């Protein structure tokens, strides 16, 4: 890296010191928020998966039960 480029990088780094306070505040708390959000997503998807699975099982069971007499009737 040339001295000129290094000086420019230093100036940019210094300019970054003026980042808006609200962004700094966001950075302070975002890690917790993002981890919580990720956990909620995992829990949400798990619950959704269990729900869909349960609904599908019940649906299949009901369908089988409903179709069985019809099949028996068709054979006789």
């Amino acid at each position, binding site marked *: 890296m040339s001295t000129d480029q290094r000086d420019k990088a*230093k100036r940019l780094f210094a300019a970054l*010191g003026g*980042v808006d306070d*609200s*962004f*700094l505040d966001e*950075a302070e708390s*975002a890690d917790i928020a993002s981890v919580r959000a990720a956990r909620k997503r995992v829990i949400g998807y798990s619950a959704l998966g269990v729900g869909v699975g349960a609904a599908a099982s019940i649906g299949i069971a009901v369908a089988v039960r409903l179709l069985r007499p019809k099949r028996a009737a068709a054979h006789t």
Partner: protein
Amino acid sequence: MDDHMILDLFFERQESAIVETRHKYGLRLQRTAMNILHSHEDAEECVSDTLFKAWETIPPSRPVYFGAYLAKITRNFSINRWEAKGAAKRGGGEMDLLLDELEACIAAPGGPEEAYEAALVTEAINAFLSTINQTARVAFVLRYFHGESIRAISERFRVSESKLKSILFRTRKKLGAYLEKEGIQL
């Protein structure tokens, strides 16, 4: 103790304001200073200088984001100390890595030279940060304001280091393009 109560102590000129501030923000400030200076003694002195500066400036200042206000003071003290100690000449360390990475945002030399206006650059950076998504923004701020290591940020975000490097790389590229589009030359 919340920030409003601490700031009230400053306004009442009670020395417990310093104690409470150190209790709440001391470690965070020390980490920011350590990321730049890599010396516990120097980092501790920067934190002490920060608290003294806060004592001097509050009142009349009453910052809305007290933590951010302190972090900026610490960062400035740390950079000044880093430069004063000639660490830049020695090379190595996280600061050199940070500067290497920021080179991606700088237009190649040979372009028209313009006077450096820090306020303009800062304004452009803030405008740019408001256009990107939160994850990229937070990662960028943690890396290039606080000087956090890639590993530390990836652990906080619970993402792989390579994923984080990719986010930062894309953000630097975008910032470089944004600064160029805005006609900003460093």
